[in-house]
């Protein structure tokens, strides 16, 4: 591992200032569950590392009256998994938090880290995409908001400039009769990386689907939305037939590769099955 300078900022401003001073060879560390293995394997050789553990502002998870949820970038997967409000209002997000790594890893791994690491298979990305979350980004030029669907730009690449920091995610409030689910396929039940992950989020109104959002992991260079599938559902009752059609359209949105974890064909098959299943569960949950 290359020798690096370690910065321990106490607040977001100090953090941004350090990033601006030190430039592109700086990496941010929160839980370190993605960064440290990459540094140990020599994939990343940062000259400086900014440790967020002293920045309390990044660790808040709070419900906003009538306007959704704010998730600080340093909130851990374990907190997401166990938070009573997240579990009841945003079950897809809670489910994705519960699938990251193991309990020990989840106690360290953060939402911000999962997103900024920008792996195509990041488990927390699909539900946040389906929930139309916005990322709040701080930089020397102030703060900006980025829709999460614009956040990922490539494998392990995001819109963040080297001097910018992901501060929090804003998850909009959901209307009544909304439901969602995240499912993924892995060879073993825990401690594994998604071969495919699918999050579906719907809102029903008068027996028809008012809104549908479907997001996929591990089938493209970035986590993606299956917009054609979403549009096919909106304004229609969610019959098994409609759900099946959406699953077919979701498959068309996927651009998977073949690797050791699964072939492209198998991944397409998984997208169809998991889209069907998550939509079916989302519909059940919306009825509660």
């Amino acid at each position, binding site marked *: *591992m290359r020798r690096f300078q370690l910065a321990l900022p106490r607040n977001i401003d100090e953090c941004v200032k350090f990033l601006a001073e030190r430039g592109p060879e700086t990496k941010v560390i929160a839980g370190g569950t993605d960064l440290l293995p990459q540094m140990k394997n*020599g994939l990343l050789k940062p000259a400086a590392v900014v440790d967020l553990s002293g920045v309390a502002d990044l660790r808040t998870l709070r419900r906003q009256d009538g306007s959704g949820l704010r998730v600080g970038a340093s909130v851990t997967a374990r907190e997401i998994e166990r938070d009573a409000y997240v579990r009841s209002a945003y079950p897809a997000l809670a489910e994705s938090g519960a699938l990251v790594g*193991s309990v020990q890893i989840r106690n360290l791994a953060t939402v911000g880290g999962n997103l900024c690491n920008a792996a195509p298979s990041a488990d927390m990305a699909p539900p946040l995409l389906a929930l139309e979350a916005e990322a709040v980004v701080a930089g020397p030029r102030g703060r900006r908001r980025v829709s999460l669907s614009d956040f990922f730009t490539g494998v392990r690449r995001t819109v963040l400039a080297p001097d910018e920091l992901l501060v929090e995610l804003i998850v909009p409030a959901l209307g009544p009769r909304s439901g969602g689910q995240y499912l993924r*396929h892995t*060879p*073993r*039940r*825990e*401690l*594994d*990386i998604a071969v495919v992950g699918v999050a579906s989020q719907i809102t029903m109104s008068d027996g028809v689907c008012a809104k549908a959002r479907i997001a996929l992991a591990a089938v493209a260079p970035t986590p993606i939305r299956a917009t054609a599938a979403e549009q096919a559902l909106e304004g229609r009752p969610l019959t098994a037939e409609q759900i099946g059609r959406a699953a077919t359209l979701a498959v068309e949105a996927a651009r998977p590769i073949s690797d*050791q974890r*699964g*072939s492209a064909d*198998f991944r397409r*098959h*998984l997208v169809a*099955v*998991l889209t069907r299943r998550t939509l079916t569960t989302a519909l059940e949950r919306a009825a509660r």
Partner: protein
Amino acid sequence: MSPPSVIGQPISRVDGRSKVTGAAKYAAEFDPGPRLGHGVVVTSTIAGGVIATIDTAAAETAAGVVAVLTHRNAPKLPYREHKADVDPEDGERLHVLQDDRVHHHGQPVALVVANTFEQATHGASLVRVTYHEEPALTDFGQAETRAVPPGARREDGGHPGETRRGNADAALAAAAVRVVAEYVIPREQHNPIELHATIAAWEDVTLTLWDKTQWVDNVRDEMAAVFGIPIENVRVVSPFGGGAFGSALRPWPHVTLAAMAARHVDRPVKIVLTRRQMYGSTGYRPHTVQRVALGAERTGRLVALHHEGIAETSTYEQYTESLLDATRLLYSCPNVTTRYRVAPMNVNTPTPMRAPGEASGLFALECAMDELAVALDMDPVQLRVRNDAERDEDADLPFSSRALRECFRVGAERFGWERRDPRPTSMRDTSGRLVGYGCASATYPVSVEAASARVQLLVDGSAIVSSAASDMGPGTYTSMTQVAAETLGLPLHRVTFELGDTRMPTAPVHGGSITMASVGSAVQAACTKARRQAFARAKRPSADLVEVLRQLDYSVDVTVHNEPDDAADHYSMHAFGAVFAEVVVDAALGTVRVPRIVGAYGAGRIINPKTAHSQAIGGMVMGIGMALLEHTVVDARSGRVVNSDLAGYLVPVNADVRDLEAIFVDEHDPHVNPLGVKGVAEITLVGVAAAIANAVHHATGRRVRELPITAEKLV
């Protein structure tokens, strides 16, 4: 009055507290003093060729680096002839840093020694190696066509290229029902949780090694041969092993490197391999392709059995294992042929991995038996019982004991086999997922090797018993303490068993399920003799050993060398078992879960049902891995293992493991050894993968003949 019997009691591990509190010391944790240097290995990045240039300048000048060893400056070592039971009979071990030749990806080409592990790791990253690459054989499909019959002879313990009884070809052609199929098992890694590690320290001409090993005596003998020094000058210490499953049977090149470097820098040197390095330098279960042909009468009676297997080996050693041995004796069949081939490749040498041979061979045979049951429209348990052998038809000897039928009876009852609807895809769980039941036979040979044990009976009424044995996890400390306490007639807490030091009386390898039978017999014999001596020296008559010892002026100290008797000449000695697995399959996703495994074993006397059960369910967990997950993926371009870490090489996690149960049927075998034990280490892996594969077929109607059974193969 003698204390109640402790043999057969479910005693908790006597070393449990030291393990969970961290007091138990593993190889890398010993402290040979403040001058300890840390060695980090640099490995080859090609599969075959010669080193062209090796630039160590940057590493040598890096902070903290003490020395960089390569083939150019490493001392030429004598490497005297040394072959142990764990070494392949044909070929010669890798001679580390002795020349510029590269035999496989991951071969050590340099060692950086520094004051700290971090400095050595950094130094290792600065070594630049270039190669003259040569064509290398890294693709099994290509190597298979150049496979050769093994050179070793059967009478020397080798595994023959051909065996034959009767005429299998003719019988197969005439058989009423035939099954012919090919089965593939990928390369698998042991992946013990403890990384392989060695600390070497020279003092004048003597060498001390703290090493992760399953056989301290052989590490001593091999290092004495490699360095050309008397064995009395080498001491090897290894009191605890954090798993091994065979990976620590042989000393691998890093052991020699540690000793070489320690002498070179005149300081103790520690080498801990990285997880990644273990995939290229501590052996593995070889990739195999097997073809099985079975012929049977309509009644289910086997009339022909042909089993052939091809396995990978290295270019410098010919590794063979008992891949086809069980096939020749498991069932009664007049016409049997086996054919064994090995394919030399540019890989590091494979090595025994839990139930080497039997685990692979019986996967093929027991899946084929299930296919035959389907072809015959016969219950798979009934098929196996019908073909149960009365004697070993291969060795032409009676079995010392054989509980296969009893295991199927007890196991089937416990498992609820009668609830099985034989039609594939006919059973479902409450959520509509497919359910399948499968079974398989298991067997593993019983061997006893010569072993010695020392017993010291102290005047305070306690006993110290020792042997240079190992405990990689099964519970040797505990079971030996039980045998000693029972034989001496002392309560458990008065007996301490010590192991893992070449200064102790000699013990055989801790592998092949032989420790309990071999070391246990020596412990029993030594304790019998020591007790007799104590009573002979008693000043006042007493039936209580503690009382007698307290009268003595000095302790009793006996060492007994125990040789196995000639039972193996008169009996075929094997443990047998029956494995039952239930699977639940999500048909749309292809995911297979294993809610239940029941294994019934005839393994002779069980010294400690608790540790034996733990070992058995450990074997079952490994079997789940073998069936569903494990697969070393090799990049054929470079011979590099692609998934060389525990994120890429999947083994089951707790969430994949549900109800596991092992039953040991009553079995009193007076022939195997005085203790009547058969060993339970290996057999509990045998048959598990086949039982799961057969259950998957029952659930889905799909026959997957290539492990692991991934979801992708089922959709």
